[in-house]
């Protein structure tokens, strides 16, 4: 019989070893899954994890890693602040959309004027848009005691409708021959979030993600506000005793995560995506939740987790096209990652023992 025994304090070793262990178990279980689908498991796993980085076409996929990883990291950093405080923003996808719409709206409003001020203005608008969308669940929670999980999640669907309405109406490209979608911002120099160094995938969103990682690290480890965030999440009563005002944390956490998600949306719409279209959002806001937990809600962990997640996206697509694996199998594979992470997470706070028989 196995028996779980609570550790006197969380194990430092396992805090960092569990994500690695989870990835390894996912590879084994995923390999078994692919084998059951009639594929060579080693080839499938190597297609997902190895080919994008070191394969023949790595020069194309490596930049993709940053392009896909940056929004994930940027959003996940914001979410992790709230998650640390026990404030659950599940609606980053909606904040991402609204940030993109606000930023693109600024660009389209100035079109075709050229100015160096337009892009900074778009960045600001993107952040404010995401922030405002995040403030809706915050204010409702404080004013009426609504549940931020539900409200933020439902606002995703509202945002998706708003996106469709914009792509088909107000922001539709007048020269687009009736096709839905806005003007392509990549063809509008002042608004284009271009690659900073050609061929690397490095754009302003990547820079913003790195700044967010450092900002979050300093906040959580050195600042009183970060301390209060952690305190509120771990021991709400102790936080109130310490003098933390829960309302302030709700506003800060939902506002910040909204703003960062909005920024991610703006950098995406002005760069890799290029235009506001009906299917502009691809689920970064939801995947970022997995990234946040995979990274242990720690800024540097999130950075690594974001890159890993981006890798499975790219490798997954590669496996689909090269090996004919169904898309569902790839999604299952990504789901396994979170599943195993949560499972082995137990080892941080508990140790497993072989129980001797005892009446207790």
């Amino acid at each position: 019989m196995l028996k779980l025994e609570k550790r006197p304090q969380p194990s430092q070793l396992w805090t960092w070893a569990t994500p690695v262990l989870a990835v390894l178990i996912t590879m084994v279980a995923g390999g078994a899954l692919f084998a059951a689908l009639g594929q060579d498991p080693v080839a499938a796993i190597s297609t997902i994890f190895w080919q994008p980085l070191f394969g023949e076409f790595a020069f194309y996929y490596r930049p993709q890693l940053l392009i896909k990883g940056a929004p994930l990291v940027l959003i996940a950093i914001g979410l992790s602040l709230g998650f640390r405080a026990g404030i659950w923003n599940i609606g980053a996808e909606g904040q991402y959309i609204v940030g993109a719409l606000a930023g693109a709206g600024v660009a389209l409003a100035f079109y075709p004027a050229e100015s160096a001020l337009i892009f900074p203005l778009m960045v600001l608008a993107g952040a404010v848009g995401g922030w405002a969308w995040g403030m809706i669940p915050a204010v409702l929670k404080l004013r009426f005691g609504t549940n931020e999980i539900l409200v933020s999640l439902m606002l995703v669907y509202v945002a998706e409708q708003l996106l469709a309405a914009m792509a088909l109406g107000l922001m539709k490209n007048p020269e687009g021959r009736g096709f839905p979608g806005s003007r392509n911002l990549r063809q509008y120099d002042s608004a284009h979030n271009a690659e900073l160094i050609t061929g690397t995938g490095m754009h302003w969103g990547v820079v913003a993600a790195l700044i967010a990682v450092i900002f979050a690290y300093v906040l959580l480890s050195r600042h009183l506000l970060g301390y209060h965030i952690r305190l509120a999440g771990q021991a709400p009563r102790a936080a109130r005793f310490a003098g933390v005002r829960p309302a302030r944390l709700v506003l800060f956490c939902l506002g910040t995560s909204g703003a960062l998600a909005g920024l991610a949306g703006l950098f995406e719409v002005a760069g890799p995506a290029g235009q506001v279209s009906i299917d502009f959002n691809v689920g970064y806001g939801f995947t970022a939740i997995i990234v946040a937990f995979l990274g242990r809600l720690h800024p540097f962990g999130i950075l690594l987790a974001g890159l890993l997640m981006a890798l499975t996206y790219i490798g997954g697509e590669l496996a689909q096209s090269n090996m004919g694996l169904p898309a569902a199998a790839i999604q299952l594979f990504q789901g396994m990652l979170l599943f195993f992470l949560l499972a082995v997470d137990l080892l941080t706070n508990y140790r497993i023992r072989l129980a001797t028989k005892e009446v207790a």
Partner: protein
Amino acid sequence: MTGDLLTVSGLTKAYPGVVANDAVSFAIREGEVHALLGENGAGKSTLVKMIYGLVKPDSGTMTLRGAPYAPHDPHAARLAGVAMVFQHFSLFDAMSVAENVALGMEKPPALRDLAARIRDVSETYGLPLDPDRTVGDLSAGERQRVEIIRCLLQEPRLLIMDEPTSVLTPQEVEILFQTLRKLTGEGVAILYISHKLEEIRALCDHATILRQGRNVGTCTPRETSARAMAELMVGSSFAAPERARGGKGEVLLEVSGLSVAAQGQFGTALHAISFAVQAGEVLGIGGVAGNGQDELLAVLSGEMPVAAETLRLKGATIGQHGPSQRRAMGLLTAPEERLGHAAAPDMSLTENAILTGAARENLVNRGFLKWDAAEAFARRIITGFDVRTPGPGTAARALSGGNLQKFVIGREVLQRPEVLVVNQPTWGVDAAAAAAIRQALLDLAAGGAAVICISQDLDELIEISDRFGALSEGRLSEIRPTQGLSVEEIGLMMGGAHGMEVAHV
């Protein structure tokens, strides 16, 4: 009645990393009250759990009335005639007394017969209890009677009682003692676990003292001073708190007309509470748990907002301020619940030092934490209050209750408060550490601070407080000088013996 009822020899039980009981031997005679004494963690609980069949010893033997006794579960222990009243009751609030008793029985008789038997037993042993009352309406003392009667219905030969008086008023304690004496008169032996040495001196015939899992001696409590017993428990001598103080000074904290509605289902409302504390004095506030102590502390700490003019600190209204501002102004508090309220369980002691010390100890510079200063503050608390821990990096939950309590009290005392409010400052703390904490509170008052000590330990309040008041159902009694106050008077201030009167509003 001179034969040994239960003999325990060489009982040993080891848990990973700690030997809870190391070859413990002692004997309980028929018809005696035998006290089991020891600090927290001395191994008392493990020992009685082995006797009651909840834990199996690694080695050692027991004999009950001459026959080998090795219960493999509590059921076997009850069949052999061993019953136990736990410190925490296991009763269902929504059911009647008789229904609750029936739940614990193997083959319960019809409720009507059971009710009659309960009445019988309760009359025989002087424990007034109506079997038809709903448990949710009973006081703590009455609930304890349900547990006792549940045990007595099994006609036990040995009754184990774990800290039975911690929830009782002095009058209720007296009723309990009469019952226990009646039982011993019939030859029932009682194994009595308690911290309260004066009680043990009044009640018990013999005492076995445990320290670090070993039996370090037996004594006859009536012939041994409480102090000598405490020193046996601790293993060294320690100084009793000393009062040395000047006169009283100005009024530091004034509470006037404080009323608060009950928070949630289990909260207690506070009704028109008014009092003032002066510099240099200790105000003791007694009362049975759940009569508004937690609420009063929450109001004073700033966690529960009240109208501005209800609270005045040195003349300034502070009711509207939150905990941080009150701390900055000199009003510090230490709640009863250590883990999760006074301290964050998973955070290190350094981080927990910041919890209340941030502003007064200057641990924050423009919003940025000064980790070095915080760690130094944590170290000062650890050395100043003899907190036994590997270091300030240890998580709070890894500390024993008593050690964490020393840390929590030390954290507030070292911040040089002008007014300090503590709730149950020595709850679960060993005798030597409790004396040190009380001394720290007295020193604080001697240094010109006002101390409000909310506690359920009457000995403690009598020992350290200058004036005494009691909370009962959210109302504060008249506040009287402690000197010259008799235990009976204190009991009446606490609301008398709950349940002695038949009507219960």
